[in-house]
């Protein structure tokens, strides 16, 4: 059967909005937080509550599903429904939940180990299927909960408890993985820029389809200052590229540098120099993920580190297809259980 293209619906038309004006505190549960003092997870929690309150979707219509890890403790602290599940499998539970309950907003909270190691397979497939769930990967480049072993995002040679003389494996880039998985929404933010994080969360939540957000998160106990080289306040402007759809890709304290295409990828050009005209404008909606992949691969120190929504394209979700198949089948075919039980043919015994 040829797939029918179902209509696209904005969040508001699927999930009812609350009547009253909801505040951050309406999304905060009364459970005591148990993260280490100074952990980046605290800021993410606060921005999540703030970002979601901007949507004005009632908390009972939201479900947070997590795997296992420090990050995966998150659902306990949200005054929503939630399931703290098993290591790496949150995308599967979230998929089943969202497909049978389109009226709920479903979030996945995961860590770099949870999402990219034990749960790598599920992450690929939930993104590929474009199930309408919002995935937030707290990347601290370490296994926090198990006390400091290296993770699939730890840099080559990193010394950790389980790599006393340095790791011998190369890291994965979460954004590249997401883009390669045909994700329809891919973004990055970080714990110490509350405003950017709040906005990014809100945009992800409003996306129709699977949204993937990498949040750089400091683990001050086992991997302190993992991102400080480019996220510290005093270097941010020089070393981060804040992306805005439709805007030129400029960075630097005085927006004096930009990104342009080179023979091998992207290169930095002087925004006031002769190549200024080659500076790219960010197009998050570009169907091809080519430039998005090039952006995802920009790494400190060679390049500025991109932040914001890298990709956002709209196509029907898995649930849209599935629901429309059901609707069409119900319209076209008989659905009488008695008849079904009889099968192709019956005979009568007298």
């Amino acid at each position, binding site marked *: 059967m040829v797939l029918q293209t179902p209509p696209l619906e904005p969040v508001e038309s699927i999930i009812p909005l609350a009547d009253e004006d909801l505040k951050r505190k309406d999304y905060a*549960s009364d*459970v005591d937080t148990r993260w280490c003092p100074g952990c980046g997870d605290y800021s993410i929690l606060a921005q999540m509550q703030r970002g979601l309150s901007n949507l004005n979707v*009632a*908390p*009972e*219509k939201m*479900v947070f*599903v997590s795997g*296992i890890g420090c990050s995966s403790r998150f*659902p*306990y602290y949200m*005054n*929503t*429904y*939630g*399931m*703290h*599940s*098993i290591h790496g*499998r949150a*995308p*599967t*539970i*979230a*998929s*089943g*939940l*969202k*497909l*049978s*309950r389109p*009226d*709920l907003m479903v979030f996945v909270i995961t860590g770099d180990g949870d999402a990219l190691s034990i749960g790598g*397979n*599920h992450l*690929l*497939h939930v993104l590929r299927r474009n199930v309408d769930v919002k995935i937030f990967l707290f990347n601290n480049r370490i296994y926090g909960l198990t006390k400091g072993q290296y993770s699939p995002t730890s840099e080559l040679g990193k010394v950790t408890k389980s790599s006393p003389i340095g790791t011998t494996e190369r890291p994965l880039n979460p954004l590249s993985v997401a883009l390669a998985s045909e994700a329809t929404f891919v973004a990055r933010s970080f714990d110490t820029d509350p405003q950017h994080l709040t906005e990014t969360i809100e945009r992800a939540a409003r996306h129709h389809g699977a949204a993937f957000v990498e949040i750089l998160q400091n683990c001050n106990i086992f991997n302190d200052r993992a991102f400080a080289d480019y996220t510290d306040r005093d270097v941010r402007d020089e070393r981060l590229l804040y992306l805005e759809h439709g805007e030129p890709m400029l960075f630097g304290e005085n927006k004096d540098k930009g990104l342009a295409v080179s023979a091998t990828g992207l290169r930095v050009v002087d925004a006031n120099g002769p190549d200024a005209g080659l500076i790219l404008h960010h197009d998050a909606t570009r169907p091809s993920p080519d430039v998005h992949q090039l952006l995802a691969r920009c790494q400190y120190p060679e390049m500025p580190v991109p932040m914001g929504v890298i990709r956002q394209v709209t196509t029907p979700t898995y649930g849209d297809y*599935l629901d429309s*198949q*059901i609707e*069409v*089948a*119900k319209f*076209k*075919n*008989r*659905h009488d*259980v*008695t008849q*079904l*039980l*009889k*099968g*192709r*043919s*019956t*005979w*009568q*015994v*007298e």
Partner: protein
Amino acid sequence: MTTTSTQTNGSGGSGMPIQERDRVTVRFAGDSGDGMQLAGNRFADATAVFGNDFSTLPDFPAEIRAPAGSLAGVSSFQISFSKHQIFTPGDEPDTLVAMNPAALKSHLSALTKGGLLVINEDAFTSGNLKKANYPSNPLSDGSLDGYRIIKAPITTAAVAAVDDLGLTNQNAERTKNFFALGLVYWLYDRDLQPTLDWIEERFGRLPNIAEANRRALFAGHAYGETTEIADAHVRVPPAVLTPGEYRTITGNQALVLGLITASHLTDLELFYGSYPITPASDVLVELAALREFGVRTFQAEDEISAIGTAIGAAYGGALGVTGTSGPGIALKSEALNLAVMTELPLIVLDVQRSGPSTGMPTKTEQTDLLQVMFGRNGESPLCVLAAKTPGDCFYMVLEAVRLAYQFVTPVVLLSDTYLANTAEPWPVPDVTQLDQIDIPYRKLEHVSPEEFEPYKRDPDTLARMFIPPGQPDLQHRIGGLEKSDITGDVAYSPENHQRMTDLRAEKIARIANFIPEVEIDGPESGNLLVLSWGSTYGAVFTAVNDAREAGHEVSHAHLQYMNPFPRNLGDVVSRYKKVLIPEANTGQLRMLIRANFLVDAQGYNEVTGQPLSARLLTERITQFASE
């Protein structure tokens, strides 16, 4: 379409007198490409319409197409039909149809002494003999002495019958299964009409192919009339079955129908998460074609995802189901434990197959009982059921759903390859007469935040207060960490863990108060009880009756509830001097019975990949009864 049985005598005017017999077993065997499953299924259909009771046993290689003519590529289909009610597809066939030397080689030893061989002599070429490792031609070297043989040029005769239809050689030769079928129809006095109807329905759009198959069928039938083998022409009178409307059903079809019916009775949307695996794939495939019933099938990336999605669906308030076979259960164990800890209603179908590891994927075994009972970390009790016949798979699905919701617990339903593929006549149930299934969370729709606690329990069933997300002011979190009694908050206290461990066990134990007691067929106490479970029901029932006919006093009890056991089981097993437990494993139920009830139960165990042999079991029962 409803066809009504016609009981006309379909035979022609051969000189052979027709013999009457109570029961006959026929096995079709040939190369995977020879269409033996198709021939067997058509024969079963014609048998159903004629009115015999019957049972079938398809047996095929795991390879999709092993090299043509090889021993590895032999596929077979056995059908037993009778004028009485029967419970197995028969041990030894009375008739073997062998389409090539490899089929003969693989199946001859099963044929009953003096049985009838129908052989496609065209296939006995030196090349094919060699592929089957025959040093000389069995058709001429005397090794088949003692059998009655119909040697028919099945391939050439079929090709000749369709000669002028302009088919390719290959297509013309393909009709040989219909020729063989026509011949066997003559032998057993079957009406051709149901098969002609089927050909029309199936090949109507390819008139040439339809015509070729019809002609081959008629030609085979006519060939039968010329046979001069004594006593080959046999009629088995129709069985006296309970009046009603019947269809044929396999275990896997019954699982599918059970799930759709459960969805209908509960008014819950069905979500089926699965990853393809023999012999459970049919369930996914057939459900996927039933979108009009609101079925959401989800072909997951692996078995872990399959159960994860089913848990998510169940948590959301849908009827969450996952289905697989033994290797898939192994992958699902961690998630199954999450469902135990979060106490969610989840249905897990395990269509068992031969193991360990990949084992023999197309062969049957009852070897997952202990895996589903104990194959998880921690103290992890859940409810386990086992279907006993193909049609029973339907009713056990309804039972699984009833218990999963009443007790808010995962339920595992065991079937196996044998039940999955075996077909039998099945009285079509009246949906309006089936018991409704209560969904307790619907009664909590207006529960106030003051009254609600996620782990508050029903005093009778100990089921927790489960409500799906969406209800205002009742937001709460569940998960795999130990829960505090009543509130469901994360808890590490020693007392609480002990209490929750006990509660989880007690909840499952209390299911025994809501399921039937085990019934005893035979004396209520005495010398010997034969205790069986799951798909061996037919073979054990048959063997017990044969042993009784041989003069032994034997009682039989059969289990469909494996955890918890029926509440009278301990008492029952203690009332006999001897207890014999036949199983298609090395003694898994026996281990449970011995551990639970301290009785010195003995086993009869076959792990051959084939269903238990009723004949060998009868020998064991008679021997054990008189020891």
